């Protein structure tokens, strides 16, 4: 690569990547520094491992890590698994496909907090779901469905909100696959599942990675859904960090914050590598 070309690439990267590096670099630096005892708002500052040692030793910390990973991974896989068949179905326009696509993508337009509020209304003690279950004879009397301990409601809402996002990315990617390729695979006797594994998935792996990663990170670091409809016996990492910060324990909050960042990064790399490896061998 010549010097001129390198300078050209750097110039292209600077407004996007350059800005990200400066901005996020400053934020991450202060968060990491605080987790080691620097930049204290009150009292003296100085290097210390104690916030990390005490932090990761707490049961509540490990529990929050496990719970957030469960929510993040489940939401990402379910959203992408649901979006693929829909994206393939909508690949070619047919009568009514625009309406169907609009209905499926509608959750993108519904605010997260609004979605949580609507969901609460539906599943509340005297809500329509309970009324219907009693009317159908499935429930003898209304049940408490809010803030269920297995976070089923929360994951339902995560998938409802995020699946359209995966659909948006995957629709573009599957539409870019030419008919010739799919017809050739079909003529060679490949079934639907085989066509997906050998042709569609390898050709759309970029969009698949983007969907998985973005949904995973969003759900992992969720605060709003967790504080409104999530289980009351669990705390997400973002909630745990805010809990610490609200009590003025900035260094402890920084430990949780750095953990959350590390898990997001590690999870994203893992998802990207696994999806790439799973389909690279089939590419040829």
């Amino acid at each position, binding site marked *: *690569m010549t010097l001129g*070309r390198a300078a050209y*690439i750097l110039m*292209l*990267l*600077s*407004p*996007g*990547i350059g*800005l*990200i*590096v400066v*901005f*996020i670099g*400053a*934020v991450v630096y*202060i*968060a990491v520094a605080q987790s080691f005892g620097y930049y204290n708002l009150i009292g003296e500052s100085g290097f210390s491992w104690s916030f990390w040692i005490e932090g990761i030793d707490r049961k509540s910390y490990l529990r929050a890590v496990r719970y957030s990973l469960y929510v993040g991974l489940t939401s990402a896989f379910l959203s992408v698994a649901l979006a693929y*068949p*829909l994206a393939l179905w909508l690949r070619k326009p047919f009568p009514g496909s625009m309406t169907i696509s609009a*209905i499926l993508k*509608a959750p*993108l*337009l*519904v*605010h*997260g*907090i*609004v979605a949580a*509020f*609507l969901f609460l*209304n*539906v599943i509340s003690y*005297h809500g*329509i779901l309970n*009324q219907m279950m009693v009317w159908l004879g499935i429930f003898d009397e209304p049940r408490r469905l809010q803030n269920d301990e297995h976070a089923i409601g929360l994951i339902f809402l995560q998938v409802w909100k995020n699946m359209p*996002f995966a659909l948006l*990315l995957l629709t*573009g990617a599957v539409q*870019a696959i030419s008919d010739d390729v799919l017809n050739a695979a079909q003529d060679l006797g490949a079934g639907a599942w085989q066509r997906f594994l050998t042709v569609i998935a390898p050709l759309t792996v*970029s*969009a698949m990675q*983007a969907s998985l*990663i*973005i949904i995973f*990170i969003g759900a992992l*670091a969720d*605060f*709003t859904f967790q504080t*409104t409809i999530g289980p009351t016996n669990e705390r997400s990492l*973002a909630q745990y*960090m805010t809990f610490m*910060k609200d009590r003025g324990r900035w260094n402890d909050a920084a430990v949780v*914050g750095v953990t*959350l*960042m590390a898990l*997001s*990064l590690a999870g*994203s*790399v893992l998802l990207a590598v696994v999806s790439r490896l799973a389909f690279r061998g089939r590419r040829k």
Partner: protein
Amino acid sequence: MIARLRIDQAPILVLLLICTLWLLIPFTMAVLWSLVDPSGTWTPDTLLPPVISLYRWEFMWNNSLLQPALLNSYTLAPTAAVVTLLLAMPTAYALGRYDFPGKETVKLIALLPLVVPTFVTAIFFSSILFQMGLAQYRFFAILLAHAVLFLPFAIRILTVSFEQVRQDHVDAARDLGASPLERFRVAYWPALKPGIMATLLIVFIQSIEEFAIAYIVGTPDFTTVPTLLYSQLGQDFNRSNAAVLALILAVPNVILMLILERFLKSANPALSSGKG
């Protein structure tokens, strides 16, 4: 064949029905809750509220921070969408069209704003603003933070778009003597258009929805619709007031998106024929 198609489509049709019901029923309930007049309590044994009025709407319009919040949110979001798109384009072009050492690292760096939880970003960004004495420029501070936060979405989506530009189309256009502008129009634009649309759409929605930055950096005098709704869902939870705010947040969002989509669609023929 017909039987197979029906079996194939049955789960999808059921899913569509559920999606439609899950949109219609909760929104209908929200509308009804927003119309409950304080003089009559709506109990579960009645299908509709006993007394209906626009009292809640008038109350919220006149007695909450709804008006400034709407102005703030709907100035911030489109500005953030355009700014983010402009910032992301050169980077996405480099990532989508050029091979260079460290490209995969650059792609990972582009994801950094997503790795940092928004509450961490919000708190430490506001701390930086205070130290620099810039805390009073709340609009521009939030705009900058939104642009950075949503750059990963824009870069990823636009990179995929740039990757999908077919080199044979670019070469064919060049061989036929097309100018750089014409090459962009015939070879790049058709592949980029859905990505640009998706970027504007997603950044707009993300900016409208964003809570942490707007709340931490905006407090006390810069209210957006989500921070207002969130505060209403807190201590003084009132289902009817929250329903009004939820509808105010959700409905214009849907309408604006439809207008944007229509605008982009109608812009397309003029651009693709070169007569715009």
